[in-house]
């Protein structure tokens, strides 16, 4: 992140009227109270409460950042994604189980066991799974409809790695950036979404 962009983001409070930040409690005060009133537990350390620029801008703008600010930060987020070289299509079968599992990164969980992607919490994917959420768009037949070439693979990989690089205040976690999913796990999910053999595209 460049200094110029940090300043841009920091100055946002002054630029945007925020209905979420009203009355006598300042943004800084609320952040202080949060840090005072939580404690580290298991793998969930206190640094998870440090808002980064994405969280701060989205909080202060009530998830509606000015377009230029959003664009600048999205570009930074995108530039920080370490896209692997070669094919991004992993094993759709492994992706299928990871898409279904909602475990991972919570204070009571064993960090040595792999996290799931929890995709079905928010997305409809394969027709074989009838319990799915609707917070995110349906991804059913995504590969069939949108293609599965290198560009599409890169897009899906990037979206899972860091959704904020594409839509700043998306509600989707940054699975790669936060170390929640490994490179291989993300490739497996890319295959589950795109591979023509995946039940998602049958």
């Amino acid at each position, binding site marked *: 992140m460049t200094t110029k962009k940090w300043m841009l983001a920091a100055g946002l409070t002054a630029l945007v009227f925020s209905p*979420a*930040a*009203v*009355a*006598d*409690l300042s943004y800084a005060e*609320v952040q202080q*109270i*949060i840090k*005072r*009133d*939580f*404690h*580290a*537990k298991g793998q*969930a*350390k*206190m640094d*998870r*409460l440090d*808002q980064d620029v*994405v*969280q*701060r801008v*989205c*909080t202060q703008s*009530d*998830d509606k950042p000015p377009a230029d600010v959003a664009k600048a930060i999205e570009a930074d987020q995108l530039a920080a994604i370490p896209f692997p070289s070669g094919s991004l299509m992993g094993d759709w079968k492994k992706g299928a189980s990871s898409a279904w599992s909602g475990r991972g*990164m*919570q*204070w*009571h969980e064993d960090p040595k066991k792999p996290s799931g992607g929890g995709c*079905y*919490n*928010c997305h409809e994917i394969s027709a074989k799974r009838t*319990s*799915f*959420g*609707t*917070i995110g768009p349906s991804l059913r037949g995504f590969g069939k409809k949108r293609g599965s070439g290198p560009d599409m693979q890169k897009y899906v990989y990037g979206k899972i790695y860091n959704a*904020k690089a594409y839509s700043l205040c998306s*509600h989707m*976690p*940054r699975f790669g950036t*936060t170390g*929640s999913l490994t490179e291989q796990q993300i490739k497996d999910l890319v295959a589950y979404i795109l591979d023509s053999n995946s039940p998602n595209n049958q």
Partner: protein
Amino acid sequence: MRATAFVWPLTAAIALATTQVAAQSRFEQYQKMVGEDSPAELFVLVGADLWRKKQGPKNASLERCDLGKGPGVVKGAYASMPRYFKDTGNVEDPETRVLYCMMTLQGRDRKEALKRPFGNADKPSEMEYLMAYLAFESRGYKIHPGKSHPKEKRAYELGKQLFFARTGLWDFSCASCHGTEGLRIRMSDLPVLSKAGPARAAMSTWPAYRVSNSQMKTMQWRINNCYRQMRTPEPNWGSEVVNSMHMYLMVTAEGGTYAGPGTKR
């Protein structure tokens, strides 16, 4: 939760409260059938005994606990909290207040009384039983938390800001899941807790018996559980953050008819 906001028709008066729950759900029939006769009532019975049980260094019961309506008044108290208490100088929700009564009336050590605020199916916690009882004693009362004292206003403001603040490893705010109408996680409908209708349906039915794990769960647990799933560290039990979140939700639900303890997924 809006989706799980049936009202357990124990009495005709309570049944009237169903009229405020207009939300339709594919699980409506399921929730109605599950709620008609709920094990929640068993927790109420045990809680009533615990409320009257003499214990602690002072060998006293909680019967003289002041929940904001004067010592010994439990009727309608749950529905009128959180509120500001002069003796502690804090805004307190029912659980926080009952802990204070355990310490003052029963002479119990905070650490001892708080050793196990959240129980499990095999061994529910004392607090879970007590909340089921206090909730039951507020059935049919209007939800009206404290709103006039400056500290009550501050709690509402803080709760509101917390509700919309992005935090934790996965960038969620409470509003990420509970801020847009018509969404669901897996097959669970998500109530928009920043709106009066769904907030009333949700807040009038906590604490609740959760059929998925056969446990009575309290509001402090519910907030704790949301933060766990938001991948944050753990909020301190009874902290300003938790009490303020509870205040924001109860003020948003103000005017609803309280009908807890509820029964949920």
